[in-house]
């Protein structure tokens, strides 16, 4: 057991500053940004009594006359077409409710799910009763955002074979603001593992397997080998290290962290230590900047 004294830990310094301006201005909800009404209101602000006030805690960014406040930490807002990973919380009534790191649980309707063994099969009563056999509480799924409802509830769909139930693997939860915009969310990394970078901050690390086997609705309990487990543990620990230091997560940065940890000869379990995480973060930033 490694015991660290609080007096030994150096104060946590940010490794990177938010982009946009050299002078970052942090605001808290209710703080007045500008008293000028000529500025355009962006996200994270509102007008009251002729003053522009911040509605979230974050830093102020300004582009010409548009002032926005970007929150430092936020829940997943939802965007149509995003690929996300969710966990089932409720089953029934022709739909599943999923926890997707948003304000409210998202909805996945049975009609929007492509059932195994049939392209556009009509859903009947038996299917509705058998919903639990497909996905029960706690199941992890990879889905697509179809619509962002007025009430904030996301409507999801799993219409192609790309989406569906996820099998064995490790789920890492990070802030959605750390995920880069990427059309392709599922990546088979060269180190021998598959990573799904869910836009909502839920990242799923799993062993590589064939495409059609990957997202079927039957459970695959085949034992995962030792080598693959080492890689998956290393990857998930690297992702946690990067997220702790607010570094953007993408296949490139995660692979850079993974390679750095191998180069520096760090054992997988040592990646859980605070100072090692910092070293990895610095090494990743350097290698991403170099390339």
């Amino acid at each position, binding site marked *: *057991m*490694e*015991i*660290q*004294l*609080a*007096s030994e*830990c150096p*104060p946590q310094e940010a490794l990177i500053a938010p982009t946009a301006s050299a002078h970052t201005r942090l605001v808290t909800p209710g703080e007045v940004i500008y008293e000028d009404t000529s500025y355009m209101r962006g996200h994270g602000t509102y007008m009251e009594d002729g003053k522009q006030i911040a509605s979230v805690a974050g830093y102020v960014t300004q582009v010409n006359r548009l002032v926005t406040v970007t929150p430092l930490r936020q829940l997943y807002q939802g965007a149509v077409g995003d690929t996300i990973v969710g*966990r089932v*919380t409720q089953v029934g009534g022709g739909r599943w409710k999923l926890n997707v790191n948003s304000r409210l649980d998202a909805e996945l309707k049975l009609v929007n799910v492509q059932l195994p063994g049939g392209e556009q099969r009509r859903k009947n009563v038996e299917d509705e009763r058998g919903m639990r056999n497909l996905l029960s*509480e*706690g*199941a*992890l799924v990879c889905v697509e955002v179809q619509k962002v409802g007025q009430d904030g509830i996301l409507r999801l769909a799993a219409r192609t074979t790309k989406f569906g139930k*996820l*099998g*064995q*693997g*490790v*789920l890492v939860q990070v802030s959605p603001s750390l995920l880069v915009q990427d059309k392709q969310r599922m990546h088979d990394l060269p180190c021998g593992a598959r990573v799904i970078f869910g836009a909502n901050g839920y990242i799923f690390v799993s062993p590589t397997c064939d495409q059609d086997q990957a997202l079927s609705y039957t*459970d*695959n*309990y085949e*034992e*995962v080998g*030792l080598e693959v*487990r*080492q890689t998956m*543990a*290393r990857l*998930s*620990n690297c992702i946690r290290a990067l997220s702790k230091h607010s570094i953007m997560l993408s296949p490139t940065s995660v692979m850079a962290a993974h390679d750095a940890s191998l180069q520096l000869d760090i*054992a*997988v*379990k040592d*990646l*859980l*230590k*605070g100072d090692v995480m910092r070293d990895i973060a610095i090494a990743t930033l350097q290698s991403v900047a170099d390339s």
Partner: protein
Amino acid sequence: MVDINLSEAEKRYIIDGVKLGIRADGRGPLDYRELELETGVLDTANGSARVRLHRTDVLVTVKMELEPPAPARPNHGKLLFFVNYSGNAAPEFEGRGGDELAARLSGVLERLYSDANAFNTAGLVLVPGKYVKAFYVDVEVLECGGNLFDVVSVGVKAALYATRTPSITITGEDGGELEFNLSDNPYDVDRLDVVNAPVLITHLRVSEGATVVDPSIEEEQCAPVSVVVGVAPNSSICAVHLLGPGTIGPQTLQKALKGSSTLGADIHVRLLAKLKQEENFQGRRIRGFLG
């Protein structure tokens, strides 16, 4: 304690990993995560310690009172434990939700310190049969991220080590009532001898023959039963407590006890070394809760 839902496939992955000797985050079965410790965080208590292990956060305070002794033990001081699960720790601890677990933990701590070899209450007597020192140890669980028993036991030992009470002398007798004088000198203090105080090690029984130490929240979802072992600095086992519904086979129990013996001795050596190091730190700045 805290419930998160995992899918069957995730659970299978974790259980298989433990059987193969590599856990989901790369640790071995006897590996702890990094523990952070700080004593003297509260001025209002005679001794205090705050311990953090990943997402588990515990505050332990020690206060001394002068009281008449327990009728059955007129020549012994008192050491009393009170555990409170703060409503902030987990949603299920709101109101009286955490009372049952708290009572369980207090009971284990009392058993742990009941033996004279662990903590000698005979040395806490002021006037035999009339006035003894009573130490009230209050444990506040601020955040529950799994593995509470181990963290609390380390916190209790650290807080007792850091306890300083003003030295008390009897100045005279006035009409049957004794008069005490508490020393004003901040360096004229009494300390407690906790060198032999034991710590707890929790083993989660994942399957027959396979237990893991310091289980993460995900691992705790995969198995209901764990065994908590109290270990003294000389490697002897001084308490065994079964936690959760289920059974542990004799061979698995033997293996867990043997593992705890060596691990416990190592933890004690490290803990004492760190406590001494913190004590000798001149001009230490208390980081507390906001640093």
